[in-house]
């Protein structure tokens, strides 16, 4: 493939190679254009003729396909960004979203059991609303990656933060059920107990292989 020799030809090829959408693609191309024009103008100011300055600017920028490929975030990050977008939408209506999700359960328990037991849903509801509000207030992209990084740095705190809500909810549920004097057995809840350490294990950050870390 021939090397583009004009800024516009370069940008056309660069844009074609970019695997980005809409506004972000336009921003990247605009930045590249600004850069190339500035590089060309500086070349001219340094004594090059306009044509040579343009070619030098293009060559210094790098191969358009190679540079464009570096903007491709890869599948994991793309999925993460998509989830971020969903989270931001979800976070825009945290109370409504969580309430709609939990309301049927609260209604069923209230009607068939006790309104007091239904209060057990309050801690997870409040936790979810709080998380939603945090996301709404931040308006940040990539918080998921940072949360993942934080998990690696502070595994114990991560476990407490992610499992704490569920443990708190279960504890509140049992306490309220006991207070309500429910005739229903709570034994089925014990089925969930093995899930906690299982979740803990699955959530645990990968540890370095001891054999590889300590070769004999």
């Amino acid at each position: 493939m021939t090397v583009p020799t004009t800024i516009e030809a370069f940008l056309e090829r660069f844009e074609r190679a970019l695997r980005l959408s809409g506004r972000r693609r336009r921003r990247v191309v605009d930045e590249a254009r600004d850069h190339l024009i500035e590089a060309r103008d500086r070349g001219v100011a340094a004594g090059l003729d306009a044509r040579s300055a343009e070619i030098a600017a293009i060559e210094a920028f790098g191969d358009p396909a190679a540079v464009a490929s570096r903007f491709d975030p890869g599948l994991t990050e793309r999925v993460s960004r998509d989830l971020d977008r969903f989270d931001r939408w979800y976070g825009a209506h945290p109370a409504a979203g969580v309430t709609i999700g939990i309301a049927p359960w609260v209604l069923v328990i209230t009607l068939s059991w006790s309104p007091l037991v239904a209060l057990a849903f309050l801690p997870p509801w409040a936790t979810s609303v709080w998380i939603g509000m945090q996301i709404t207030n931040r308006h940040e992209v990539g918080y998921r990656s940072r949360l993942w990084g934080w998990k690696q740095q502070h595994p114990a705190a991560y476990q407490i933060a992610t499992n704490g809500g569920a443990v708190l909810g279960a504890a509140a549920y049992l306490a309220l059920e006991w207070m309500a004097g429910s005739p229903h057995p709570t034994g089925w809840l014990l089925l969930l107990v093995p899930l906690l350490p299982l979740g803990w294990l699955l959530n645990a950050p990968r540890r370095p292989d001891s054999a590889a870390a300590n070769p004999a």
Partner: protein
Amino acid sequence: MRGEILKGHLDLLLLATVAARPGHGYEILAELRRRSDGAFALAEGTVYPALHRLEAAGMLTSRWSVVDGRRRRVYSLTGSGRRSLATQQKELDQFVVGVRAVLGTAS
């Protein structure tokens, strides 16, 4: 300097450069070149994916601004970027000390 070495430290170098003074891509690159005395030779275009990545990670923030009569995307450091820069600097210092010790060139 070999590309792989530079690539491994590009985020740190960019954060340090932007921390010194916010600027657009070309300015950041020129400042990086000036401060390194030309030691870091990299394809100029590769700076932009790195800047975008750092922005997506919340370490940089950017906005369109008019510089010398042209509309430019100007990058500046966030609080998270400042903290990350400090952490990365510390890690690099420890790494350099370790490598020097292994090579027997510790001062």
